[in-house]
């Protein structure tokens, strides 16, 4: 059920008890739930619920490149397609992909590419499709996080995972993981992603204004939050293999391999 009938924002973004509108502390993440292997047809897939965000990502590849002229003879290519469902936002989104979706697709591709060994896959492409089914702020960060998980689920060799989160400023205070309302009504928004093999920043955007001291605080807060998100990603992947191990070590398990 939508909380608001009109697309308008409250004047204050903190409650009287000092907590945020949804009851969080300033450095608290929304509840995050991840799952891998949600799409049977795909080579790899993942589902992410992050607050009210609900995002599905699927990976196909390495496979032949369409159109053919995009193929590179010496390396594979990575293509990311970020899309939002028409009903994922307050006002129905037009079905055709817009400029915003194309830009976000590009920055996510740039963010993930350093993780892959594309030189091992000449002439092929990896395609990552990200479908935002429900959006409530921070979808580009959530999409990056879930795309990395889908690639890992597909068994694509990777240097490490990447995790992303947005930090920002509302009513003059620095907070972690902006919700939709905080994003629209707040003063600053800084999405950031860290690739864990070198612990460096691979996605960074900023809109708003900050002084140097604030910037340092943004980065420190984001780093702490990202460690937690990375742990959830790792646990999700591990639990998939633990489940597989359980199933295969059980002598009574049925072999329901559909290929046979």
């Amino acid at each position, binding site marked *: *059920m*939508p909380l608001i*009938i*009109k697309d308008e924002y409250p004047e204050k973004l903190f409650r009287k008890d000092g907590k945020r509108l949804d009851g969080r502390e300033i450095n608290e993440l929304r509840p995050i739930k991840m799952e891998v292997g949600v*799409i*049977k*047809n*795909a*080579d790899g*897939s993942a589902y992410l619920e992050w607050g*009210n965000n*609900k995002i*599905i*990502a*699927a990976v*196909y590849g390495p*496979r032949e490149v*369409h159109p053919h002229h995009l193929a590179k003879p010496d390396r594979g290519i990575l293509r990311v*397609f970020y*899309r939002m*469902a*028409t*009903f*994922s*936002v*307050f*006002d*129905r989104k037009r*079905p*055709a992909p817009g400029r915003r979706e194309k830009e976000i697709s590009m920055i996510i591709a740039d963010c993930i590419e350093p993780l892959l060994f594309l030189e091992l896959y000449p002439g092929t492409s990896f*395609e990552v*499709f990200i*479908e935002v*089914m*429900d*959006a*409530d702020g921070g979808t580009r960060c959530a999409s990056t996080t879930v795309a990395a998980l889908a690639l890992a689920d597909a068994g694509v060799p990777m240097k490490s995972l990447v995790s992303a989160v947005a930090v920002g400023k509302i009513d003059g205070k620095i907070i972690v993981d902006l919700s939709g309302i905080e994003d629209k009504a707040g003063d600053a928004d800084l999405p950031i992603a860290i690739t864990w093999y070198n612990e460096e920043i691979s996605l960074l955007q900023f809109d708003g204004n900050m002084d140097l001291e604030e910037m340092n605080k943004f980065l420190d807060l984001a780093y702490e939050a990202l460690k937690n998100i990375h742990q959830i990603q790792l646990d999700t992947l591990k639990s998939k293999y633990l489940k597989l191990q359980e199933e295969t070590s059980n002598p009574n398990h049925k072999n329901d391999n*559909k*290929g046979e």
Partner: protein
Amino acid sequence: MMDVKRIISKIEKDYILSNLKKEERIDNRGLWEYREFQINSDLIASAEGSADVSLGDTRIITGLKYDVGAPFPDLPDEGVCTVMAELLPIASPLFERGPPDEQSIELARVVDRGIRHADCVQTKKLCIKEKEAVYILFVDMYVINYAGNLIDAGGVSALTTLISAHIPEGIWNEEKHETEWTGKYFYGQDIVNELPFVLTYGKIEDIIFLDPSLPEELVCDGKISISVTENKITSIQKSGSATFSIDEIKMLGNKSLEFGKKLRKELNLLQYLAKTK
């Protein structure tokens, strides 16, 4: 990747066919048996109604959005309900990106017609002010995984979405000449009357069967989709190169009414009405 192929080998086709001749299916179903339906409703917070429907491995997520606009001149006191479908590239290696192709348009059209001609959505109740403002409902279906028979899964998905609807109530302000929000909602039970179900049959040679799975869809000569309400047939779509005899159509009409009743009872879609606060 699972065994998703564009073309099925001759051997596999013969295997499917010889099984069907014994009234058996490759997934152990009978000829007139559905795969299992799984339904979740109202899962999308941003939508005014939604459903996540699986039919076997086929999965469709549908959401409802609304807009307020001017009515069609020939129907000045009726709202509009439109259905769109998108075959997402995540759903199958057979699907490509890009504008809607024939298959997604057929899916949307068949589901739309099933709903439109069944007295399902009470379009007169979607009128805010005659000739000035009516609700326009958008039922948008997204195919998440493709394993055959999108139409039947889409039909249940669209219907569940409409049933789970919770839409802000608007009234006409004569002075300002615009719609005002009352702060209240109206719900699925206020706009949905009949519950139409669409049933799709595949045909190979002279064998007809319900709910074709993906391999069956790839080898079948054609399909026929029949929408039914409680007692009436409301829409039919034949597709593919198969031909049906008059007796077969009569038989399928009869079976559709029977299976429609069964689905109506088993799925009990009215349990997905939005919880009123």
